[in-house]
């Protein structure tokens, strides 16, 4: 799965740690999602979408 997390984060000038704190996860989780090593669960994907104020499909897409 592809995602725009890194771009969305950069647009807000957030570090990975900033985003991790806002999501209530570890920095390594954010890093793993951004680099495509880990696909988040649906609840976490919804939390990410809510944080950025976007629908999930605007952040995550199929390969």
């Amino acid at each position, binding site marked *: 799965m592809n995602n725009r997390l890194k771009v969305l984060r950069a647009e807000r000038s957030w570090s990975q740690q900033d985003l991790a*704190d806002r999501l209530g996860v570890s920095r*390594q*989780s954010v890093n*793993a999602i951004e680099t495509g*090593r*880990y696909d*988040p669960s649906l609840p976490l994907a919804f939390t990410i979408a809510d944080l950025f104020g976007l629908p999930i499909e605007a952040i995550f897409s199929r390969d």
Partner: protein
Amino acid sequence: MSSNPSRAAMKRYVWRLMTVMAVYVTALIGGQLAMKAELLGPQAAIAIALVCGLCIVLTFVIMGRLMIETQDEFVRLLFVRQTLIASGFALSLAAVHGFLSDFDIIARIDAYWWPVLFFVGQFVGQVANRVQYGTWGALK
């Protein structure tokens, strides 16, 4: 916003583990010293042996609690993966060693070494996580 429940779970894990390890080391060293000094009766020996064994059992319980209490799904995945690798590592060695010793090719060893190899396997699991996911898995 900066409070991280997984970090709190990790702190509890370290605190519990340190407590159990303190009891374990005290019982083990104290028991060995008492045995060498011939101060240990049969009932005391059983009690100390059971305390040592129970500490190892509690270690597994504490690891299980960490899996349950960790809120960070990715970190939990890493920990579960690492533990599965550790289990496979220790049980595989136990099986191979068991057959080799059964055919008198190598000497038998005390069974308490298998949990030790399980803990070595935890490190192997961390290395596997580093290779696969780019992180050792410990919360920073």
